[in-house]
C-alpha cells in the first residue's frame, strides 16, 4: 500500500503553468529524490504537498485518505483556505525542511523544537490546565522527545543556544529535528544544502542518510546528484512542470531514456567537474 499517492497535480500562477500534471507514489520508508533544472517546478510541487500552495487540479492521498482533491476544491476553494483547523490537521501528515532553514531566531534550539508540540498539546487543554502545563507529564514527554530528536541530529549539547550562534549546517540540522518532532508521515526537503557552504553540506546529508536507515519516508529536492543516486529509492527528473523521467537511481542516472534527461545530467557532470579543478 502506498503511503503517498499523487495524481495529476496541476498548478499555474496567472498565465504561467508551473506544474502540468504530476503523478507519483511512494511506499513507506522510501526516499524519493527530485532533480531538475531551476524553474522546473520542484519547489512548487513540495509547496502543494504541504498546502502552502493549493494545486488547481489533482489529488493528494496519504495512507489512502484523500487529503486534497483539486476538482472538489475548485467548487469550494475558499472553504479550504479559510478552514484553518482542517488544513492544519492535513498539513501535519507532511513535514517540510526549507532551503533557508526558517528557524525561529528568538527561541533557543530546544524551544524551536518544542514550540509547536507544546502549543498543540495546550490547545486541547482547559484554561486552568494550561497554566500548569509546564509541570505536567505531557510537557516532560514533549521535552524528552525533543531532546532525543536533537541527539539524533547530533546537537544535544546545543539545546540552549540560539540559532544565530550555530553554523548553517547546524541550523539546518535543527530545522530537520524540528520537523521530525511533529512525527510527519512524509518529510520533504527543499534543497536542504544549497544555502550551505560546501564543507557543511556533508553533515546535513549524513543526517538524511541516517533518517533513511530508520525508515523515514522522505522526498528530497536536491542538486546533489551523487547523494541522490546513493540514498534515493526512486528518482524523478522534472523539466518544465512535467516528470520527464522517473525510475530507480540506476535507471535515471545510468540509463536515461529521454534526451532532456541526458542533457541535464551531462551538464551537471561538467559543472561538477569544473568545480573540482
Amino acid at each position, binding site marked *: 500500500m502506498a503511503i503517498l499517492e499523487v495524481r495529476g497535480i496541476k498548478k499555474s500562477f496567472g498565465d504561467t503553468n508551473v506544474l502540468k500534471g504530476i503523478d507519483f507514489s511512494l511506499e513507506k520508508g522510501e526516499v524519493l529524490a527530485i532533480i531538475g533544472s531551476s524553474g522546473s517546478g520542484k519547489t512548487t510541487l513540495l509547496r502543494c504537498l504541504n498546502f502552502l500552495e493549493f494545486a488547481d487540479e489533482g489529488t493528494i492521498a496519504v495512507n489512502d485518505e484523500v487529503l486534497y482533491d483539486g476538482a472538489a476544491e475548485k467548487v469550494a476553494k475558499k472553504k479550504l483556505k479559510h478552514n484553518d483547523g482542517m488544513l492544519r490537521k492535513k498539513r501535519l501528515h507532511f*513535514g517540510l525542511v526549507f532551503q533557508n532553514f526558517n528557524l525561529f531566531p*528568538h527561541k533557543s534550539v530546544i524551544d524551536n523544537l518544542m514550540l509547536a508540540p507544546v502549543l498543540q498539546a495546550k490547545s486541547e487543554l482547559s484554561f486552568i490546565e494550561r497554566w500548569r502545563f509546564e509541570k505536567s507529564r505531557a510537557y516532560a514527554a514533549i521535552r524528552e522527545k525533543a531532546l532525543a530528536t536533537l541527539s539524533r541530529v547530533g546537537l544535544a549539547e546545543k539545546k540552549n543556544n540560539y540559532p*544565530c550562534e550555530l553554523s548553517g549546517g547546524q541550523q539546518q540540522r535543527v530545522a530537520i529535528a524540528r520537523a521530525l518532532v511533529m512525527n510527519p508521515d512524509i518529510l520533504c526537503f527543499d534543497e536542504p544544502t544549497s544555502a550551505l557552504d560546501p564543507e557543511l553540506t556533508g553533515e546535513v546529508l549524513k543526517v538524511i542518510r541516517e533518517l533513511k536507515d530508520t525508515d523515514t519516508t522522505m522526498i528530497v529536492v536536491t542538486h546533489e546528484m551523487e547523494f541522490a543516486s546513493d540514498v534515493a529509492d526512486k528518482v524523478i527528473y522534472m523539466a518544465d512542470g512535467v516528470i520527464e523521467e522517473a525510475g530507480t537511481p540506476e535507471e535515471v542516472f545510468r540509463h536515461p531514456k529521454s534526451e532532456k534527461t541526458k542533457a541535464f545530467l551531462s551538464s551537471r557532470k561538467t559543472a561538477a567537474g569544473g568545480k573540482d579543478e
Partner: protein
Amino acid sequence: MSFLDVTLYLLNGFKLTCLLFALTLVFALPLGLLISFCTMSRIKPLSILFKIIVWIVRGIPLMLQIFIIYYVPGFLNNNIFAKVDLYFLLNYQVQDMGRFIAVVIAFSINYACYFSEIYRGGIQSIPNGQYEACAVLGMTKGQTFSHVILPQVVKRIVPPMSNEIITLVKDTALARVILVTELIMKAERLMASALVWPLFYTGVFYLIFVGVLTLLFGFIEKKMSYYKV
C-alpha cells in the same frame, strides 16, 4: 516663594504630565496594534478607511486635534466634557476632569496612529518564511502571531518606539491649550506673580524624565540582544 516651594508646586503639575503620559501609552500601544491590523487588512474598504484615518491624524497638528475633540461635541449641542467636568467637581471635588479626559482621548488616538505605522513596518519586516514554518508545523494564525511574529516585531520596533515615546513626553505640554494644568501651565501661573525662572526650571523636569526613559530603553534593547536576526 522658596526654591523648594516652587519645586513642590511644579511637581503638582508634573504629576498630571506623568499621568497623561502613562494613560496615553496604556491606550495607544494596543490601539496602535489594532489600527495596524486594520490598515494591513485584506478587506479593502477597511484598510482604505484606516489608511485615511491615519493620514488625517498624522497630517493635522496635535494641538488642533485636542481642540477638535474638546470643542466639537459642544458644537453638537452636547458638551459631554463640560458635563464630566461638572460631575466630577460636584461629586469628587476634582477639577477639570472633562478637559483631562478629552486630552487623553486626543493623545491616545494621535499616538495610536503613529504607533500603528511603526507596528506595520515591524510586522512587514518579518520574512514570509517565518509564517510558512509555523504553518507547516500546524500552528494556528493566532499562535503564529503571538509566539513567533510579535516577539520578533517587538525587538525590531524598540528603537523607533522609544523615539516616539520620548516625543510624547514633550508633547504633553500641549494639554494646556485647553487649560489642563500640566507642568508648563503651572509655571505660567507663577509668572503672574512675577516669577519667571520656574518656567525655565520646568525643562529640568523633562530632562530627568527623558533621561530615565533613555536608560530604560537602553536596558530593554540590551535585554533583547540575546539573539540576532
